[in-house]
Structures are given as structure tokens and as C-alpha cells.
């Protein structure tokens, strides 16, 4: 008999499970060595609690009513549940807190796109450590973890979620245009972004910066010439770079247009790219305002690695003979 399972979910059989387990055990070992204690939280939470996090794209995709009429939701990431956990379980503990997880999260998918409805993430949250030192620690753990599993070709793109909003504020871009421009940037539509900028009829140098900055990416030299409104964010990125050991710093490329989809990022953000995979295999960033929403106002940074994507990237590198 053939019995179906929902699209975007899958069974894992022993051969693959052994490989996945080897990856997660290695990741867990690296996290533990850096002092991160593993936690597990319920897959279903009260929707009203998850909704304390700002940003629409983190909103959970699957909800049910329980027997009291409360709405329960499947978590769409681990960051928000851990913010809830820290505020509730560690209301007075001295920061910084170092927590890690290897757990499933759930998101909506479009049919026939090869997207996963249920996916396994491995990540850390460093709570109470402000940037740039906290950011540098997270990047160090991230690269340590990827090195430990044997990924060789990866790069970490580093940007700042506050950079573009600050730039728009510095040029007095009207509020409603700011939202549209961030939306174009989030959609990676640089043609649409340029059209929005042209419609603002700003002085040439301002328009030029608004169009060019999101396209800046590469080595430390892309940070070189930036002055004026972007100097503060660029200074933050440079401070992070200065704190990194050479083996981590050589993995970093700067990406001033990096706009991660989640609404709660406040400062440095990063994505992990590998030439063997067409999509980022993980990422993270600073969310200095998120914990405050849960009543424990602490700066924080974290990342999540997609375990299946990491597995695919490792296989891809092996296939390419890297």
C-alpha cells in the first residue's frame, strides 16, 4: 500500500540519517565547546506569544485551535521561542547567556517549488552580548562549525540591516517611499529600487548612493570609500572584522545590500554562501530589540544553519571534487 505524506515533508532513511546525524553531532560538539548549552522548546506555542516578535514574515504558517479556543501555532524559527524561553526561565540570570539548538521549524511552501514545509535547523543564540564583540563571537562559532563538518568553499556575506534605513533617513526619503524601497530591496529587485529612487528626484549624489550601496559586495575594499550617512554602519562592520581571527576573517565578504527577510534584525546580518548550493545555507544577525518585546531587554545575536542544505552543499562539494 502507498500512503502519501504532505508535500514539503519527507522520510529520512538509515543511510541518509547516519550522514545527517554525523553532521548534527559535529555541530553540537562545536557549539558545546564554545559554551553553548542545548535547549529544546515545544514545536507548538501560543500564537499570541510568538506574535510579540515584530516582522510579518516570521509569522507562523500553521495554526490550530486547542480545546480552550486558544490559537496554537507551529514555530517558524527557533529565535522567537528562545527569546520567550530566556525571558521566562532566566528573568534574572546574569548575561551573557549562550544557548544552542538542533530542532525543526515549519514554514508555508508554494507547491512544486522544492521548498520544505518542515526543516531541521542547527543554531546558536548569544544573548546579552552587544555588537561588535557578540557578532564576532557568533561568526567565529559559525565558521568553526562549518569548518568542523568539512565544508570548504563557503563564504559568509556580512551586512547591516540598519544601513539602508539610515541611508534613507539621512536623505529625508518620505516614509511611504521608504517602505516601498525596502520591499524592492527585500525582493532583490534592483531595477524596481532604482525606479523608486529616480522618482524621488533627489540630488544626483544622493540618488547615486541609494542605488549603488545595495550593490556593493566583496572584500574589505568595498567598505573603503564610504563616508557620510553610511559611515556608522560601515564602521560597525569594520569593527566586527577587526575582532575576527584571520581564519574567520578570510571567510567574510561584505555585502551592503544584504536584506534578510525577517523583520526583527536590527544590526549586523549575515548569510552563508557555498558555490555548491544555489541558495544560502544559513544565516543570522543581531536582534537587539527582540528580547525587550518579551520583557528582558538584552542585545542578542544568533544564526541558524539549514542542516539539509548543509548536507546538500557537502555532497555538492564532494561531487565537484573540492
Amino acid at each position, binding site marked *: 500500500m502507498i500512503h502519501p505524506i504532505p508535500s514539503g515533508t519527507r522520510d529520512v532513511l538509515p543511510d541518509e540519517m547516519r550522514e545527517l546525524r554525523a553532521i548534527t553531532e559535529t555541530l553540537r560538539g562545536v557549539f558545546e565547546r564554545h559554551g553553548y548549552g542545548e535547549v529544546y522548546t515545544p514545536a507548538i506555542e501560543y500564537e499570541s506569544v510568538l506574535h510579540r516578535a515584530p516582522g510579518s514574515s516570521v509569522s507562523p504558517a500553521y495554526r490550530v485551535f486547542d480545546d480552550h479556543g486558544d490559537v496554537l501555532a507551529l514555530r517558524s524559527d527557533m529565535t522567537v521561542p528562545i527569546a520567550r524561553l530566556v525571558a521566562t526561565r532566566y528573568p534574572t540570570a546574569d548575561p551573557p547567556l549562550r544557548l544552542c539548538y538542533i530542532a525543526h521549524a515549519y514554514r508555508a511552501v*508554494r507547491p512544486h*517549488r*522544492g521548498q520544505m514545509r518542515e526543516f531541521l535547523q542547527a543554531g546558536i543564540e548569544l544573548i546579552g552580548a552587544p555588537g561588535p564583540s557578540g557578532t564576532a563571537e557568533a561568526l567565529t562559532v559559525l565558521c568553526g562549525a562549518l569548518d568542523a563538518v568539512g565544508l570548504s568553499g563557503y*563564504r559568509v*556575506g556580512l551586512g547591516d540591516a540598519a544601513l539602508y534605513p539610515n541611508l534613507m533617513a539621512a536623505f529625508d526619503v518620505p516614509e511611504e517611499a521608504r517602505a516601498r524601497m525596502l520591499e524592492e530591496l527585500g*525582493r*532583490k*529587485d*534592483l*531595477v*524596481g529600487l532604482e525606479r523608486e529612487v529616480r522618482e524621488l528626484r533627489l540630488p544626483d549624489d544622493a540618488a547615486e548612493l541609494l542605488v549603488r550601496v545595495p*550593490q556593493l*559586495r*566583496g572584500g574589505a575594499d568595498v567598505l573603503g570609500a564610504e563616508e557620510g550617512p553610511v559611515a556608522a554602519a560601515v564602521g560597525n562592520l569594520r569593527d566586527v572584522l577587526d575582532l575576527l581571527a584571520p581564519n574567520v576573517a578570510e571567510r567574510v*565578504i561584505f*555585502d551592503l545590500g544584504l536584506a534578510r527577510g525577517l523583520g526583527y534584525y536590527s544590526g549586523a546580518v549575515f*548569510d552563508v*554562501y*557555498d*558555490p555548491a*548550493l*544555489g*541558495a*544560502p545555507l544559513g544565516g543570522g544577525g543581531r536582534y537587539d530589540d527582540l528580547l525587550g518585546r518579551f520583557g528582558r531587554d538584552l542585545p542578542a545575536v544568533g544564526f541558524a544553519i539549514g542542516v539539509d542544505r548543509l548536507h546538500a552543499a557537502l555532497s555538492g562539494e564532494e561531487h565537484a571534487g573540492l
Partner: protein
Amino acid sequence: MNRFGLTIAVPRGALLRETLDLLDLLEVDTAEVRANDRKLLFDDAGIVTMRPSDVPTYVEAGAADIGITGKDVLMEQSERSVFELLDLGFGTCTMVLASVDEEPDPAAEALRRLGVVRVATKYPRIAADFFERSGRQAEIVEVKGSVELAPLTGLVEAIVDLTATGTTLRENRLVVREEIAVATARLIANPVAHKLKAEAIDEVLERLRER
């Protein structure tokens, strides 16, 4: 592989010739593609050819680093995670709402009498968004082939389709009622290639901007 080290997704069909002319400007060898309309994969030139609507699929997955396709395709597949880098300015078409050339307009008449209009299209997402944005109710009927047939047979009262010259519409007794969007060819890039092959992609961009 071409001098940029980039795999390029090239659309067959209406955009093919101008796309190849553009690649010639970039000194990518297109002679074999021009000579062969059955072959799909051209390793020496770093070119893969496909239907325009498949270009975002290959580029999003990283099977091609960059690609060229119409804005209509990108609008219909708006959730694809690809960078839209440049408006190439050719292949201009207009997405229109059209209905049979008679008075009163059957589409407007349906909305007035029934409060809903039936619309056939190959672009269900664009059509649905258009009617939603303008606060009108529409029942979208997706068809794969000649959309012009649908209003003539009474399947629907209107169509949403792409038109370049309007000839096909006129020949089928259809008239443009509203313009929805203008679509041109766009250069798109895979999000990982955009970071890891930044220099090559920026060089392509630079040269296309200067043309």
C-alpha cells in the same frame, strides 16, 4: 565556458535573437546557438537555452548563474529568489485586459450585472493581483494555449494577455480595454552567484549599461 565563467540561461522564442546579439557584445560565442535550434546545452559558450518561463527556475536553483527573461515572467513568478539586475530595454510588450470588440464591453457588462467577470489568462497571478488591486471581483481561468479563443467561445468575458503589436488581438476581434503593465527583458542573477561571482557579474552589468 565563456570568458566570465558564468553559466547563462538564454530564453528561446521572441527574446532569443536580441539576447544573442547582447551576448555577442559581451564576446560570448553565440555562433553554435544560432546554428542549432534543437540543442539545449552549449558548454563551450556557457549557455543553456530554455523557455523564457523556465529561466527563473534554473537561475533560482543555481543551475545557471545569470539569465535573461521577460518582466512578465518575473511578475508571474514574483516569489522566486533571484536578483533582478538590469532592464535590458528590448522585447517590449504590454500586459493588457482585452475583451470582444462590441458595445457594451462584455467585461464591464458582466461586472455591472453579475459583479464578477470571468477572465482567461496564461498569467493567473498577474491577473488576480490586477483585479484585487482595482477592487473588482474576477474568476480567473488558467489556459495554456491561445487565450484569444476563450472569449470568442463564451468561456469567459475577458482575457489578460501579453501583446506586442496587438495584431493577434485585432485578428480575433478583441480590443484592449486596460493596460496592466509594460514588460521588457531583464537580466537576473542567482543570489549566491551574485555574491561569489560578484566581479564577473559586475563586469557583465557594466558592459551592458555602457552599450
